[in-house]
Every structure is written in structure tokens, then in C-alpha cells.
């Protein structure tokens, strides 16, 4: 189990209703079903991922998240999770609002563009950062709205979103004690637990 998923697991109540928005191959939901007995659904658009979820016995609903989540009623879920997808959305701010409308609380993870390596890449090479973790070039990347921890927290302040918990891991999803000394510089993946 990846460390970020392990952290998410600890923030999910046993037996709760969980929606994983952009659930990928369903690994997290399967883990939560087995370990936490959650009643979960995943939203996914990738065909192979959808088949994987069905194979695993994970409830998956084919849906284009960008087309809206309006069919889902307010507070339908205890926890809504979105891992590593926020930066690929056209309007991350609206998506966060939607996630908080349909869920009592949300867990959001995204790559931190304030990480020293990204800063260094842009500062020294003068080019958009490309790394093993974010291997795309600017013109073909699905990640169109990068932000830093600071940016995200500013959004939370502006929209009256309460940050219940937050943590950071490196790009191998490992905890490192030193990351916490200067998260916005040293953390590569942000994990936020937010509510209204």
C-alpha cells in the first residue's frame, strides 16, 4: 500500500460512505472496502481502469468529472476522495466546491509545484519542470492547473474551507521527518483533509 493511501485510510471512518473521484484501478477503494468496510463508489473515465474496478468487485461509475457531479445530491457521502486529479481539472476551485457539496468532508491529494526541485528546474533551466514523477512536457500534460501548498491553502481561506488535517510525502509516497520542516519546499505530494 502506498503511503499516501495509508494516510487516507486513517482518515476514513469504518463503515462510512465513500466516493473516490477519479478512482483509477480501484486499489484504494478495494483496500478501504476490505480494511474499513466502507460502502464505496468510484468515478472513472478511463476504460481499462473501469474494467479493472469491475474485476476487483469495486463499484465504479463511468463519468466525466468535468461534465459535472450535479446528479449527486448534497451530503450523499461521508468522505469524498480525489487523489492526484485536481491539477488536471479545468476549474479546480469549482471541483473542490462540488466535492464539499456532495461529501461531508474531503480528502484531496495533489503534487506540490512549490517543491524545491520544481522551483530549481524553472529557475535554473528556465523551462517547465519535467521529472520522473511528472513526466509530461507543457504541451501534452494532462496537469493544467499546478499549485503549491500555499496556493491551495489560500484558496481554502478565500472559500471558507476548513483544513482539518494535512500532511506531505515525497514522490515515493514516503513520510520523511525533514519534509515537515518546510513542507512547501520539501514535500512533493500534499494530502489535505478539508470540510466546510
Amino acid at each position, binding site marked *: 500500500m502506498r503511503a499516501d493511501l495509508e494516510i487516507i485510510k486513517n482518515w476514513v471512518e469504518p463503515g462510512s460512505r465513500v466516493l473516490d473521484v477519479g478512482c483509477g484501478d480501484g486499489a484504494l477503494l478495494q483496500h478501504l472496502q476490505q480494511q474499513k468496510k466502507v460502502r464505496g463508489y468510484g468515478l472513472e473515465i478511463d476504460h481499462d481502469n*473501469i474494467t479493472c474496478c469491475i*474485476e476487483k*468487485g469495486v463499484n465504479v461509475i463511468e463519468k466525466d468529472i468535468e461534465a459535472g457531479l450535479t446528479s449527486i445530491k448534497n451530503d450523499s457521502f461521508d468522505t469524498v476522495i480525489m487523489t492526484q486529479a485536481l491539477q488536471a481539472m479545468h476549474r479546480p476551485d469549482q471541483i473542490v466546491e462540488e466535492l464539499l457539496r456532495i461529501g461531508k468532508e474531503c480528502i484531496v491529494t495533489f503534487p506540490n509545484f512549490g517543491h524545491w526541485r520544481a522551483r530549481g528546474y524553472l529557475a535554473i533551466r528556465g523551462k517547465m519542470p519535467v521529472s520522473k514523477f511528472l513526466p509530461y512536457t507543457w504541451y501534452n500534460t494532462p496537469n493544467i492547473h499546478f499549485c503549491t501548498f500555499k496556493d491551495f491553502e489560500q484558496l481554502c481561506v478565500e472559500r471558507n474551507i476548513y483544513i482539518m488535517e494535512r500532511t506531505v510525502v515525497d514522490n515515493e509516497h514516503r513520510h520523511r521527518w525533514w519534509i515537515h520542516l518546510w513542507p512547501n519546499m520539501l514535500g512533493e505530494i500534499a494530502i489535505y483533509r478539508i470540510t466546510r
Partner: protein
Amino acid sequence: MPEIIPEDSVGIVQPQTIEFDTPLELACGRVLNQYHLIIETYGELNADASNAILICHALSGNHHVAGYHSAEDKKPGWWDSAIGPGKPIDTDKFFVVGLNNLGGCHGSSGPNQINPDTGKPYGPDFPLMTVPDWVNSQARLADHLGIQQWAAVIGGSLGGMQALQWSIDYPERLRHCMVIAAAPKLSAQNIAFNEVARQAISKDPQFHDGHYYEEDQVPKVGLMLARMLGHITYLSDDGMREKFGRELREGKISFDFNPQFEVESYLRYQGERFSTAFDANTYLLMTKALDYYDPAAPYEHDLAKALSQASCKFMVISFTTDWRFSPERSREITDALVEAEKQVSYAEVDSPQGHDAFLIPIPRYMEIFAAYMNRVEADIPAGNNEGGA
């Protein structure tokens, strides 16, 4: 005939007819005191009857779901693409049951069968059937076969509606429900198309108010028109453009009313074939069952409330160019299932074939189908995964 029967076919199959003499009360208030159902089965029922799959048919379907009736048969059963050894509904693992619904015209009690009370064909006197009536009769069939709980009930279009009704009316009698290219109820547009079809049939001079059997006539033109209209709604605009375009049979227009465009002769051929193979009274009855279908109605018109009765798991599938029962309609079902906190997966398959797609072995469709059937198999109680009694 198929030169050699393919290896992944269930092979030569034989229908059987089962008589029922426990009166069946119907939604219309009438009672069928005795009736018979014609069925086909494929594969072996396991020792505790836990590997059985019920296939519900659509408007013009029947009990002949897979395989061939003889080596001379040109075509296999209507869903042969999905059922057989190694196919998504794998007959090496599952015992598959197909039936002709009551009111049908392929051997179950219906308008073209003899009414035991009169010794004459029922004709228009056969009671109008509803989807819940069919489900009740299918439950009697399950009793007869010794099947307490279906591993899955599966259907497309009107068949999907029956599967959904099963989950509401007999929640403890199925573990999985697969609802393909269906809708939670018909739209005004759907009903309108059905009404045109019914008018075409009932206004045919050979219809004789449904008593055409005695006249030794068939309302062929009416049935043909009904089928032609139906066929247009089963295909998509794109699919028709791709298949026929504006191709001319003779290469030039002839300034008369004979069929000249390929699409005209295709529709005429389909209509013609159907008009001799199907019964007009059954067509009327089936379209009415569609129009009346509304499982939410007894639950304050709240579909989620209706589906909260269910205890099985669901797989819902739709096709992008289906405009008869569009993906939007399948999403209504899925959303209601999520609201009712039921286990459900939903997939929307890209296909140019319109509503007809549910009968076509589109690779992604078959992949999802097979993946879900693996789950159905996994949920067969342990120790009974082998076929044979």
C-alpha cells in the same frame, strides 16, 4: 446452415414446454388459471442450484437465446454472441435459462395459443401483461426448476426492465442484476413511437380487431410498418449513414416509388421478414407492457425508494448512440441505485449501432460483460463451482 457448429456455441438445443396450473393473478385484475412457458436451458445446474442465470428477452425476443435448433439453422439464438463456452455468460460455469414471456408468440401462452376455456386462439382476449406479471411468472418458473436464488438476472432493453423489476419484487431471489440499454420508464416520445406502431397494426384491414386467426389472414402490412418504424429507432443516425448512406441499388434514381435507396430496401426486407415471423397481437401487447412499465409508481414515483427494496448487486450498461433508451436513462437508474445505497457499477460503451448495440459483441462491451460475470461466478457459494448435479 453453419458449416460447422462453432466451438464456442452451446450447439444444438431443444426447447421444452412447462405447464403451470396454479392461477396467476395479473396486474390488470384478471387471472390466468393455467398457462405454459416454453424455455431453453444451456449448461448444467450445480448441486445446490446456485449457478443459474435468467435471461429476460426484449420486445421481439424469445426463449431461443443461444445455439441452433438444427444443423440447418441459418442463424443461432438472439444472444448467441454473449452466451456459450468461453463467452461472457460462460455455459461451462453457469446454467442459463431463457424463456418466451407470457403473451409472446413463440410457444408460451399468448394470443396465438389455444385458450383452454374456448378451444380457440386467445387472440385479443389474452390479458395485457405487465413487467411485474412477467417477473411473477418467471419466479414460478424458478420454483419449478428448483432455483431458489438466481446467480444473476440479465436483460437488455425491455429485458433489462424485467431484471430491474426482479431486484425490487424478489430481492432475496437474485444475487446480481444486469440492466443493459434500458430505462426506468418510457418517455412520451417512446410511447408515441409505440402508438404509431400499434395504429399501423390495428388499422390494417386484415387485423379484424385481433381475430385474424379465424379469418386465416395476417395483418402483414401493419406489422411490417410497425417493424420498419421500430427498426429506425433501434439504429442511430450515424449508424444508418455508415451502413447505407444514400447508396442507390441501381446506381441511379428511377422517378417512381419503388425502393431505390439501400435503406429503403433494407427496411422493407426487415419488415417483410418480421411480418411473417411475429404475431400482431403479441406486438401490441409487448408495446403496452413497455408503455406501462414504471417500477417507481408504487413507491411515490421515487425510483430510489423503489430500488431500496433490492439487495443484489447491479451492473448497468448503456451505449452512446442509443437514442431509444439513451445513456441518460441508464444514468437515472444508476443515480437512483447510488441514492438507495446499492452496489452498482455503470459503463457507457462507445458504439455507432444505436439501441441494437446491446446484441452486438462490441469488444469493450464483451470485456465489461466478462469482467462482471467473473464477479457473479465469485459470488457463487463456495464448494459448488462445478457443474453437474
